[in-house]
């Protein structure tokens, strides 16, 4: 249960916001301060909206609005992840009154550090989605024609699958993971778009796949039809950057906004890959 939002007796008239900005990839990051008029029931999204509408920093200088990504504003789309007062989370569910109760002086906003910055608080999470391809996170159905219902499933099975299926690819688990390191490549001279893209994907595919993707692999390995390619998913998790790259820091599960049992998935994946490896060893 969540404690009620502290209602401040004397709310400030202005909130000080410190933003780590960056004009583009490869450019030097810099801090910029903003003052925003306080209102009841604000979140970090409405703070950033006000900054955009105002278009001026704390010195009254006209500046470009802070770039950031957002979508649903109710913590189901995963867009608006950033580091707020040192913690990775969604900015929509970061309520200003709570932030001020913990830290009355200012709100500090930074982009996630594990992904290349596109601009300001916006980062490129392509690698996160690529990992879902890497572990074949889908049910390999025959076709999209009408072939009747899927298999009957017990309530227990549904209740095991549903929490894993709520993963919104927000990236919190990756930001918190000591084993997940930023990959930021720049285009070589004379390299075409396609060549650069291929080199980038190859780099992604060798690095740690991440807790979110391991968990998705387990979700589909336990689906009645999804398990048809369970072996292929385990192969992906046995390779370099697979489940063995996990250092068991358990930060992922602590920061997951959907409270997905990520470490349980990782443990399961660890066991399954070990069995698969032994089995392979006997077969060869």
């Amino acid at each position: 249960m969540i404690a009620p939002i502290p209602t401040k007796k004397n709310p400030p008239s202005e909130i000080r916001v410190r933003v780590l900005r960056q004009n583009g990839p490869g450019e030097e990051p810099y801090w910029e301060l903003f003052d925003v008029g306080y209102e009841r029931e604000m979140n970090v999204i409405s703070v950033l909206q006000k900054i955009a509408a105002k278009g001026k920093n704390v010195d009254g200088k006209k500046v470009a609005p802070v770039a950031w990504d957002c979508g649903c504003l109710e913590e189901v789309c995963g867009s608006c992840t950033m580091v707020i007062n040192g913690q990775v989370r969604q900015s929509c569910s970061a309520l200003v009154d709570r932030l001020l109760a913990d830290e009355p002086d200012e709100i500090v906003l930074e982009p996630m550090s594990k992904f290349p910055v596109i601009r300001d608080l916006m980062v490129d999470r392509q690698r996160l989605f690529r990992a879902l391809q890497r572990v074949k996170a889908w049910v390999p159905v025959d076709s999209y024609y009408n072939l009747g219902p899927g298999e009957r499933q017990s309530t227990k099975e549904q209740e095991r699958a549903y929490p894993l299926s709520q993963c919104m690819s927000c990236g919190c688990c990756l930001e918190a993971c000591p084993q997940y390191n930023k990959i930021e490549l720049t285009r070589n001279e004379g390299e075409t778009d396609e060549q650069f893209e291929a080199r980038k994907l190859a780099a992604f595919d060798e690095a740690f796949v991440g807790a979110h993707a391991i968990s998705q692999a387990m979700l589909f390995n336990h689906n009645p039809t999804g398990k048809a390619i369970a072996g292929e998913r385990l192969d992906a998790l046995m390779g370099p950057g697979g489940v063995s790259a996990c250092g068991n820091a358990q930060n992922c599960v602590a920061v997951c906004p959907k409270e997905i049992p990520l470490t349980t998935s990782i443990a399961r994946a660890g066991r399954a890959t070990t069995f698969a490896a032994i089995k392979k060893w006997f077969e060869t």
Partner: protein
Amino acid sequence: MAQQRVVVVGGGLAGLAATMKLAELGAQVDLISLTPVKRSHSVCAQGGINSCNDQTRQLGDNEWKHFDDTVYGGDFLNHQPPVKEMAFWAPKVIDLMDRLGVPFNRTGEGFIDRRRFGGTLYKRTAFAGATTGQQLLYALDEQVRRREAEGLVRKFEFWDFLGPIQDETGRCRGVVAQDMVSMKIEAFPADAVIVATGGCGLLFGKSTMSVFCTGSAASRCFQAGARYANCEFIQVHPTAIPGADKLRLMSESARGEGGRVWVPRTPHDSRAPKDIPAGDRFYFLEERYPKYGNLVPRDIATREIFDICVNEGLSVDSDRMCVYLDLTHIPKAELDRKLGGILEIYEKFQGVDPRFEPMKIFPAVHYSMAGLWADYAKSGDGGLLPGSPRNQMTSIEGLYAIGECDYHYHGANRLGANSLLSCIFSGLFVGPSIINYIANQQGGYAEVPSSLTEAAVKTQQERHDKLLKTSTGDENPYLIHQEMGDLMTRAATVVRRNKQLEEAIGHIDELHERAMRVSLSDGGHWTNQNVIFAKSVQDMFPLAKSLLHGALLRDECRGAHYKPDFEKPSLTSEEPVERRRQAEVWCDEFEANNRKFLKSTIATWDTNSNQPQMSYEDVDTSLIPPRPRLYGLVGAEAIEEVWNERAKAKADSQQTATSTH
């Protein structure tokens, strides 16, 4: 046959369903979306997806009744052939989503569990917790990722659709889109184009919709010549959580699982809700609508909540309008299992646990029944002709619209849990139609003349550059958007009055002119969100204007469009003969009104005057004759009696006519 290429704009349920189906049929798909498709607004759908099912069938339900509920709930403005087809496909759609791995809630025996939604008496709604939209979207996203891995789909995420490319005959030959990171503008030649870009909640400033639901993509098609239909029909959802940045949806499933709406009988009763005894609580929906109770259709629930706060002064809080939505009588374990997702939203954003304290909610703009006009070919049995190239095609040849941005499925009011169905259905159904359309065309995507694509890119580049260069402008796009939202919310949501609409039309014209003079605070060429937003604000105006004009012209009450000055009164007499006479008059007026207004509103955009041109078109009501929607009306029985007699007489005379021929 040459390789076919289709551009799909929008990666929500409809766009993804179409993409995966087209990929299966062998077409190459370029999928363009302004957000990673997994983050599309469909994730916000909570409650579920409707179909008749084995259990309801044994209680007398069937596809036809689902069809009937949908058109009755939509006040007969729905086009019936597509709705019929959709209702008959519904069980198959749910079977498919089940096979794709959607974790639908299960019964003890392992069957898909169902709950009841508004506007029906059957438990038709399949659900995955209270995040059904998210779960359905993820299943489709996974299939599209699979096709992407196979090389059949190319995704262009963080790309903004700027407009269709049309050749000299008007046929759509591709699209122009802009990379929102590098800002480069490019042409995507195609054999056919689908827009699946959802609704336009941002016309109202704050709504339950995601920040990118501006309607600008539909507007860009509209401005390019596509017709826009039923513009004035916007659904205001009865239950949302008021917020500073957004009005967050509180799903109808809360009422489907037994949630009760009430207010204290004493205005602003200061007691805690749990201390207010039953006798002092006003369960106004249950009292006024004994048959449907808390599950009346959305337009009715919305008006009642609005009325109880605005006209009766019974809002729970004195400083803002809200009513209680109460789940506290339901065991916590059951709530967690069936509604966990939405209860967490309330908890996270309001800091109150709705399992123990009633939620405070108020209506919010939620869904656009309006959309791009789209065609269909009717089959012999009254449904749709599968594979006809006409299905879902807009008035621009080769340009298709599906999902929330088409117009024909939900009429004047959408029933809960029907939108996920119409999105997936239209997405799947359009696939073969497009393949057949392409097969009959001369000149494929590879033969689109470069002069055509270059000219289209140039037009968009000029618009973009002009916006960046305008330093003389004095208007702030964010503030213009706020003003527009306030204006639209005041004039065109729950209650509409002609005087207010006329004023709003004058005001919106002025705002539109100001929006064309915006000055940007960012003149840069890298990830410039400022200019993208400014363009979408400008493009919201054609839809806002059409909405206001459509609302002004429609002097009646139909579904979500409610004008109290034209409301048909309840029967007043208790005396049987007089009551019967009143019912006759009521039915006469109803029929006269239908002759005038049971029509689709059609808007076309006039670029010279910057105004919509309005006209009307007949609605296909050939399968289920329109009848009065009588939820909760005094004298409903008398009216129904007269109506049934007339309907029977009509049917008999038709039969006699056919048998004598």
